[in-house]
């Protein structure tokens, strides 16, 4: 078989390997090398809740068009895990390429694909890799073979290795030797796999970097003035705090004492308790967790809301209910976090959807928490937090920190009177005094119990009702302060697609696919809760909106229906959660189904255009 017309810069690779074998390093080198050649890339790491030995997959998408959603089809398979190889092979499209170790027992049993058996052991022998490093070096063999098949440049590979093994020259040398040996073997191996898919140099990634959302959030938090961090390890949020710990000495050196205290708490209850205590005492404090941790934090979230204490809580979502799928992605915490706590509790939530937003939301969350004197949640997810994304470099902040309404002793001397929760500005936000303020009027006893304007215990019905009404006013203030939705209006479109967070690439690509199918759409990506006026306006101006989200119950749609009940029946739902990031063809098909159903129930007249 020969393919005179290679497919250039628009394909995907799935590497099926064994967890704990260093395959992620190999995949990162491959991804970085292609990125170095100026070609847009995206990667999805599908890993088990396991330390070593279980199957893992990495999907690397190469797209000159800049599509970065998880690909629906991957025509190149690295079948390096015999346990899953048959299933993996079944996923390979006709004419797909299957790389596999020649010295293993498994062989692909399909005649419609291009098999390529790699003599892994022989290549490693050639390089002289010792027994201890062999399991890791094995994965670098497929990098070398793919480099030969795809035409990845030597300089790009070298740069990728340098970035991956920063400051470890011996590791760079060994891995480069393995890659070169594998490349040489593949170059000399006659195979129809040659020239079928190629990477050609572009300039689409110039000035960009590769980063994961947890690292972006960590750098953002350090830039945003975080002073106290308390956390409890939980996938997929742990790497956020670990990144924060590793960047702290470089970004905020402790020249005159630590500028940020980090404590690993005994559980998530204590983690948020520490954050609430620190926020009360005047520090910018945060925690990061995932669903099960959010459940444990519930009571403190309610206390923070009612005692009006600033706090920042990152929820890097994974699949629930319960322990669920700890290493898979979801958007299932939206409803529970919005109302986290008993009674009439409601929270401010930021919804980042890009690396730049993970960085900027990490800062803004502190500003909002202190301005609104309330816990602010940031809902990321495993896909955003742990996968590697392309990003523009982050800008250094040009605005000062917004520390909110705090009265000093001098202020109190001037004012001569003080009531913690008096709504003097009509925005529902009172003035804080921080512990340590020496003015005799400054001290109050913060509490989660019913209280009057002066923060004194009260069971008086009027006090209770007035306080709750003021908290609602504060929520209305939050509505005006949170980030606006990202809206793209297509003047011809009668259909609007609505989503939030990590599904943005799939929705954006699906819009192109829908347009090709004759359905024009506008889009709105929600950036925060509570919803602002633009949200209702967008829904109102479209005949029909489909809310695309990664959970089972259509949580964003439920909240939107509550927010604008007049439009509730014009909101369709594509709610899907199987733990994998959505693909564009899937979104297209589901949106078309949804529109079809609406047409049948005659809510949508005519075609979708």
């Amino acid at each position, binding site marked *: 078989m020969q393919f005179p017309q290679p497919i250039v810069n628009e394909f995907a690779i799935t590497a099926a390997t064994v967890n704990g074998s260093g395959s992620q390093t190999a995949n990162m080198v491959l991804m970085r090398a292609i990125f170095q050649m100026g070609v847009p890339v995206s990667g999805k790491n599908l890993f088990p809740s396991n330390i070593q030995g279980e199957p893992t997959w990495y999907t690397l998408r190469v797209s000159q068009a800049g599509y970065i959603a998880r690909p629906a089809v991957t025509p190149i398979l690295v079948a390096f895990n015999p346990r899953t190889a048959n299933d993996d092979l079944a996923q390979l499209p006709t004419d797909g390429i299957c790389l596999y170790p020649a010295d293993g027992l498994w062989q692909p049993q399909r005649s419609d694909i291009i098999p390529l058996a790699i003599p892994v052991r022989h290549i490693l022998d050639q390089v002289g890799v010792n027994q201890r490093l062999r399991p890791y070096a094995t994965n670098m063999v497929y990098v070398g073979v793919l480099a030969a098949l795809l035409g990845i440049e030597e300089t790009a590979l070298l740069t990728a290795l340098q970035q991956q093994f920063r400051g470890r020259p011996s590791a760079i040398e060994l891995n480069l030797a393995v890659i070169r040996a594998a490349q040489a073997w593949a170059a000399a191996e006659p195979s129809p796999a040659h020239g079928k898919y190629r990477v050609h140099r572009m300039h689409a990634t110039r000035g960009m970097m590769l980063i994961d959302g947890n690292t972006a959030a960590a750098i953002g938090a350090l830039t945003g003035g975080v002073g106290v961090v308390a956390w409890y390890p939980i996938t997929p949020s742990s790497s956020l705090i670990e990144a924060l710990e590793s960047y702290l000495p470089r970004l905020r050196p402790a020249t005159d004492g630590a500028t940020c205290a980090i404590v690993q708490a005994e559980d998530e209850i204590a983690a948020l308790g520490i954050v*609430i205590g620190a926020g009360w005492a005047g520090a910018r404090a945060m925690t990061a967790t995932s669903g099960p941790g959010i459940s444990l934090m519930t009571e403190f979230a309610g206390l923070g809301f009612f005692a009006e204490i600033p706090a920042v809580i990152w929820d890097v979502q994974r699949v629930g209910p319960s322990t669920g799928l700890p290493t898979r992605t979801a958007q299932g915490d939206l409803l529970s976090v919005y109302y986290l706590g008993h009674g009439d509790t409601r929270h401010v939530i930021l919804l980042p959807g890009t690396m730049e937003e993970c960085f900027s939301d990490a800062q803004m969350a502190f500003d909002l928490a202190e301005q609104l004197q309330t816990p602010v949640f940031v809902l990321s997810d495993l896909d955003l937090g742990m996968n590697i994304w392309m990003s523009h470099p982050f800008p250094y902040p040009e605005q000062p920190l917004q520390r909110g309404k705090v009265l000093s002793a001098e202020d109190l001397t001037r004012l001569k009177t003080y009531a913690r929760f008096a709504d003097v500005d009509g925005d529902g936000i009172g003035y804080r005094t921080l512990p340590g303020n020496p003015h005799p009027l400054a001290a109050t006893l913060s509490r989660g119990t019913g209280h009057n304007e002066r923060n004194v215990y009260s069971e008086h019905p009027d006090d209770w009702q007035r306080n709750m009404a003021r908290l609602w006013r504060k929520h209305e203030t939050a509505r005006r302060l949170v980030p606006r939705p990202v809206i793209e209006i297509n003047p011809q479109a009668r259909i609007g697609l609505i989503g939030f967070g990590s599904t943005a690439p799939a929705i954006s690509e699906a819009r192109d696919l829908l347009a090709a199918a004759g359905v024009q759409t506008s889009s709105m990506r929600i950036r925060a809760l509570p919803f602002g006026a633009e949200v209702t306006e967008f829904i109102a101006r479209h005949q029909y909106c489909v809310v695309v989200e990664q959970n089972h119950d259509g949580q964003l749609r439920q909240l939107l229906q509550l927010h604008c009940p007049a439009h509730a029946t014009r909101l369709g739902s594509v709610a899907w959660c199987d733990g994998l990031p959505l693909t564009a063809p899937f979104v297209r098909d589901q949106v078309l189904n949804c529109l079809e159903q609406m047409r049948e129930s005659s809510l949508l007249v005519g075609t979708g255009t």
Partner: protein
Amino acid sequence: MTHNAIGLTKADYRGAPSTLCAGCGHDSIASQIIAAAFELSLPPHTVIRMSGIGCSSKSAAYFLGRSHGFNSLHGRMPAVTTGAHLANHTLRPLAVSGDGDTASIGLGQFIHLLRRNVPVVYIVENNGVYGLTKGQFSATADEGQELKHAGVNHFPPIDVCAEAILAGCGFVARSFAGDAKQVRELIKAAFHFHGAAVIDIISPCVTFNNHDRSTKSYTYGKTHESPLHDISFVPHYEEIAVDYEPGEVRDVQLHDGPVIRLRKLNRDYDPTDRSAALLLLEQARSTNEFVTGLIYLNEHRPTLAETLGIGNTPIAALSENRLRPSREAFAAVMAELLGER
């Protein structure tokens, strides 16, 4: 003496009027907190009142009204206190808790607070019973004890002092709300202790657990209290002029100067011996002895803020240029991420 060294009167250390039952042990303790703070001339704004939920935790409103405070969640005050300490380690937390708040729902947080050595004065107002929910057993109730509504308690009590010693706490004391002087002296010593200090005070619940068969009643405390020593807090060592017989007095100097003077009563006891302290508690448990006084003292552990290397300026007071990366440091990280270096 109507004014103390910083010119405040005792009234400046009072709080709101108590709403606890008349005769509640917690109110006696509140009086001694007020007296101790007045006598120590504590600037009110340097103390933070921390509590959880329960009768004892409510009492945080009844003293030091000019100190900031946080009446937080049931059993979770230790975490809030830890956070406050990290944000501003120049403030001294005075924590009041109960046996339900500390030994039942909050035992885990209590222990972790102590093992991190957050420098709190932690008072457990221990009455073995839940008051606000009307008479259920707490985890410090005696095994076999009977209560009107709750019936018989079948489980052994948790010993707050033993738990504190095992958790690494360096100041562990037990007292009795009816022994005002001892309570006051212990609180004063605790305020000058460098690290977490726990005072477990048997504080009778006059409504639900003050009957004859209770070991947490006024009658029991008054007839059974067996002090280890006569304790007094001496703020300035040079003031000590009285001569004592050898072996009669043991002075322990705290790192910031004051002395805890332990005058021998009817036994030799060395509170700096951890094993002896645990043995004492075990023996007291097996013989049903109500031992009070300073059970364990060891001032050598760093506080949490010290362990984490926090400098003189509290994190809450750091200026913006220290809370943000420098332009150069930020640019260097971006350059590295961009692969430029």
